[in-house]
């Protein structure tokens, strides 16, 4: 007698969970914005949103690279150190002009990424230890390059990158949008993107299918580090100073959180670019909301922890279905 009711209820519950799994992060953003519309004075102002977007840019750019790495079933803990290294090289080469200095900073990041990639793809070291070693050594190296000192950057080109805008949209936000579009295209429209997802889905199957697995992995870590270096350049430009001791500290945790909350499973084989953007924005809006309501830092950290757990718990079913 009870069987029919059970069988009719099951699909609707499944779809509700499915909707939550697929759109949970967007629903959360909308709910948070609605809450702020009613309960937070001055939240819905152009200036506030501009601030929020400018603040989210470094985490977002790092998270894009992290999403690619996580898509291959890897992890990159060295992104913060790469930001520090990029920051520390800018004062060294700023004498040659903005463009060479920025390009060299990104190149240095890419070299570190290549080092990660060689350890992981060619030698077979586990991503978490390989990038942990680079994380520790990289920041030390950045501090040595900078003589353990803060160096202010006065070059007008670099400062413009951090402060100027086009039609009210800051340069850094434009760069982030372009990078989001580029990564989305890379993942969804290119052979490399398909290969990357295949490697994350099953490395063994990809090898058997004749994909250049090692090259794909290597390139993924180079891209992640390159993106982190861009974030380091933008962070430096915004501060008007190269601060290798603090820039990008703990950003790997924020980036991983953004990626996971955005629906990319840690088990690899999927990359949600828009989800990652939404994840980063959600984290930013949450901390902004808590700050605007004068919630102490302690409780906002606890809130973040709970949100990570809830987000991952909701998505947990999806992985086992696959």
């Amino acid at each position: 007698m009870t069987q029919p009711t059970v069988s009719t209820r099951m699909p609707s519950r499944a779809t509700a969970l499915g909707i939550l799994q697929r759109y949970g992060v967007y629903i959360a953003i909308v709910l948070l914005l609605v809450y702020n519309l009613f309960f937070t004075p001055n939240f819905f102002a152009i200036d506030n949103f501009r601030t929020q977007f400018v603040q989210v840019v470094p985490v977002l750019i790092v998270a894009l690279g992290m999403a690619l790495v996580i898509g291959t079933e890897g992890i990159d803990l060295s992104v913060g150190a790469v930001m520090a290294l990029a920051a520390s090289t800018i004062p060294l080469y700023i004498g040659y002009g903005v463009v060479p200095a920025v390009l060299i900073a990104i190149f240095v990041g890419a070299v570190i990424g290549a080092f990660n990639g060689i350890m992981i793809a060619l030698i077979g070291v586990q991503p978490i230890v390989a990038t942990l070693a680079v994380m520790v050594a990289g920041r030390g190296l950045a501090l040595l390059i900078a003589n353990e000192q803060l160096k202010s950057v006065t070059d007008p080109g670099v400062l413009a990158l951090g402060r100027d805008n086009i039609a009210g949209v800051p340069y850094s936000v434009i760069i982030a949008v372009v990078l989001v579009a580029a990564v989305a295209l890379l993942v969804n429209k290119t052979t490399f993107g398909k290969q990357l997802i295949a490697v994350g889905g099953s490395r063994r199957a990809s090898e058997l299918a004749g994909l250049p697995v090692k090259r794909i992995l290597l390139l993924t870590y180079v891209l992640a580090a390159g993106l982190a270096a861009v974030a380091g350049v933008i962070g430096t430009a915004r501060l008007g100073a190269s601060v290798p001791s603090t820039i990008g500290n703990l950003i790997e945790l924020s980036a991983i959180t953004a990626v996971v909350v955005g629906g990319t499973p840690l088990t690899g084989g999927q990359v949600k670019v828009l989800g990652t953007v939404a994840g980063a924005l959600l984290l930013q809006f949450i901390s902004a909301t808590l700050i605007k309501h004068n919630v102490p830092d302690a409780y906002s950290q606890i809130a973040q922890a709970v949100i990570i757990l809830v987000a991952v718990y909701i998505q947990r079913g999806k992985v086992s279905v696959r």
Partner: protein
Amino acid sequence: MTTTVDTVANRTEDNRASRERIASVLQSYGAAIVLGLLVIVGSIAFPTFASAGNFANIATQSSFLLIVAAGMTFVILTGGIDLSVGSVFALGGVLAAYGSTYGLAGALLFPLVVCGAIGALQGFLIAYGKMAPFIVTLAGLLGVRGLVLASTDGGSTTPLVTDEGVISLGQDSMFGIHWPVVIAVAIIVVGTLLLARTSGGLSILAVGGSESAATLMGLPVARVKFGVYVISGLCAGLAGALNAAYSSSGVPTVGVGLELNAISAVVIGGTLLVGGRGNLIGTVAGVLLLSVIQNLINQVGSLSSSVQAVVSGGFLAVVVIIQTVLSRTQRL
């Protein structure tokens, strides 16, 4: 003809077997060998290095990390990871300082109960909720640090340890060996026996070796996974409490990045991150190696902490590369 082929095949088989044996020994005892070499070189280069006082100093400095890394070893043996230990370490210290108003029992029980409960919560989510250890303990890292800040007015107050008994637990010594060192050694001994001689220990290795095989063998996989996170929480909390007793205060900002040191030490000690293989003796060697490197850099004097970071990071990279290459030889 066939006989020569046979002997050649046999010989290559023998070669391979001996090479595998050498690789296996290097992987298990590599850290201890390097540690021995480093101590010899250090003793020759710096007269101040090879003194009983300095060695006792290194032992005391290492004991807190060693206790944390011991718990981490159990977790990594099951193929998991615990990123929350740094925050739990800080919480253990703060709670020990608060608990010390009730004497030694309060200073130990209060942090152990709370940190054990945090480990249990994480273990529950991982073992029974089937969530990824990395994410659960990442949330633990954030959330527990939040608890530390919440219990110290946002980190602005540092609760002091006033009880004489608690302070003497941290600072007094037996035959010149500080109590934290004695406790750390006891934990290593008990843990080693637990791993090698009990069914629980063998279950931990089996779960890490192959979770599906362990399930098919009828081992209580979920209970084993739950257990190791409780052990890790207890170890981190105890280490924090002892550190608070040693420094006679529960500083809310300690332990940031401690999880990285603990993971490094475990990995350098030859425990595989994929689980199923490793031991606590290796972890001891890994912790001592990190401490000796730091101590030697301090002996040089003119070198900064950045140099130390570069050396430790580079060292970790070299070790894991060698380990990976060695374990590949074994698999062939």
